[in-house]
């Protein structure tokens, strides 16, 4: 397969996946899209292996690196500014606060991932492979533990009691719109 054929197949594949993905989401199926995404990525990887020519070279990676850095900086500034605006307007509409917090945390996460990858290429790549693997596994479990504690602790949430949504702790989002049974 030539690189041009690969580009055509890739675009067709992505459009096809997007249609399936959106239809599944529209049908309120939220698990299957993850499977579709994983299957799609694997299929694209397999197709990529069949390409005889060069898909990307050092200039593409250099350009990609510059573009990624600029995109992160632009997103960081936009998200930070929007976060302050949304957070400032939280008294007018309580729904603005979670939007602002989501923007703030997503920016922090993006910066953390960028820093980790930068550090990997800058220093850790010189380290022993087993040590990197151990550190990555530890960091993964640490993040999962913090996330699980926060998610399943049941604090700061809305609880259904006697047919009414009652505050439990200090939830920073409005009560669910769904019926409380």
């Amino acid at each position: 397969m030539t690189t041009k054929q690969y580009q055509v197949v890739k675009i067709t594949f992505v459009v096809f996946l997007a249609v399936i993905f959106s239809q599944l989401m529209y049908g309120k199926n939220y698990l299957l899209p993850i499977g579709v995404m994983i299957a799609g990525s694997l299929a694209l990887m397999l197709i990529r292996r069949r390409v005889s020519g060069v898909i990307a070279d050092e200039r593409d990676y250099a350009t990609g690196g510059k573009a990624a850095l600029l995109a992160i900086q632009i997103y960081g500034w936009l998200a930070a500014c929007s976060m302050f605006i949304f957070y400032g307007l939280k008294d007018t509409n309580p729904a603005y606060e979670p939007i602002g917090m989501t923007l703030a945390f997503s920016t922090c996460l993006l910066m953390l991932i960028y820093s980790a990858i930068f550090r990997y290429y800058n220093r850790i790549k010189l380290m022993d492979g087993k040590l990197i693997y151990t550190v990555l596994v530890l960091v993964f479990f640490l993040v999962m533990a913090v996330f699980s504690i926060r998610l399943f602790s049941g604090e700061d949430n809305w609880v259904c009691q006697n047919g009414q949504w009652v505050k439990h702790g200090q939830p920073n989002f409005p009560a669910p719109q769904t019926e409380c049974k």
Partner: protein
Amino acid sequence: MANRIKEFRNKLNLTQDDLAKLAGVRRETIVFLEQDKYNPSLKLAHDVAKALGSSIPEIFNLE
């Protein structure tokens, strides 16, 4: 950084696509190199020079 890629390529009757395949890069990269709009890595400079049957100092003028 001026270079003589086009001159050497024409001598060998190679197209940009041929040279790209020999050097293991995309054709667009050869275009950028010939127009002095991209500074190649040492490995790419070596691969291009080798593909043109020459050496880095002959192809690339670092001054």
